[in-house]
């Protein structure tokens, strides 16, 4: 079965420090990988995705993620955190060739950036 794991319920970081939000996946084929962010009482906002090619993907608001096939990981990173980055982050996977095109989401990681 396809699955996504976000091992940390919460990540705390000081403003200005680098941040990492972890994601690992388990799929039977080649994955498309996504990161979304959710602010309170809002829907999901797309941050970035990996399809193929360069393993380092750059996205919105200075975020980036690195695809690591051998470790089946797609960790989200940012060199310098802002208080406004505090939100709920979701990793998601879609399997290439899956005719459903549905996204399978991780359980989410709450990021708290303290001033």
């Amino acid at each position, binding site marked *: 079965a396809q699955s996504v794991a976000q091992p940390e319920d919460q990540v705390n970081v000081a403003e200005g420090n680098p941040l990492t939000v972890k994601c690992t996946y388990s799929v039977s084929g080649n994955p*498309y990988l996504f990161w979304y962010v959710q602010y309170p*009482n*809002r829907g999901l*906002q797309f941050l970035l995705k990996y399809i193929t090619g360069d393993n380092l993907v750059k996205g919105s608001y200075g975020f980036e993620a690195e695809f690591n096939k051998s470790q089946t990981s797609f960790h989200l990173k940012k060199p310098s955190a802002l208080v406004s980055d505090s939100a709920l982050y979701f990793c998601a996977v879609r399997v290439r060739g899956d*005719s459903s095109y*549905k*996204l399978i989401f991780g359980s989410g990681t709450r990021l708290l950036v303290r001033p």
Partner: protein
Amino acid sequence: GAGVSQSPSNKVTEKGKDVELRCDPISGHTALYWYRQSLGQGLEFLIYFQGNSAPDKSGLPSDRFSAERTGGSVSTLTIQRTQQEDSAVYLCASSLGVTGNSDTQYFGPGTRLTVL
């Protein structure tokens, strides 16, 4: 440009009543998806539309749930005889297509359903 819109933003209903949730996708997007977000279950896929057809309904939790899409645009998710376990935020998403760079799903703000 306009994003995905959903109505109502909040819906409170009594157990046993029927509810309809509406989704207006981004103009020109051929694919439309419904998901449910709840505390216990996280984010779950419900149904996927390509045009007006639903090739994948596998996520609908019971036959009380149904959805349709008309004109390749607006979609309605209907829940009959609501139960308290149906309480959740129902999210709609749309994508331009389903391959390569066109498959990014853009989400609406959601409808928060509370069943008393």
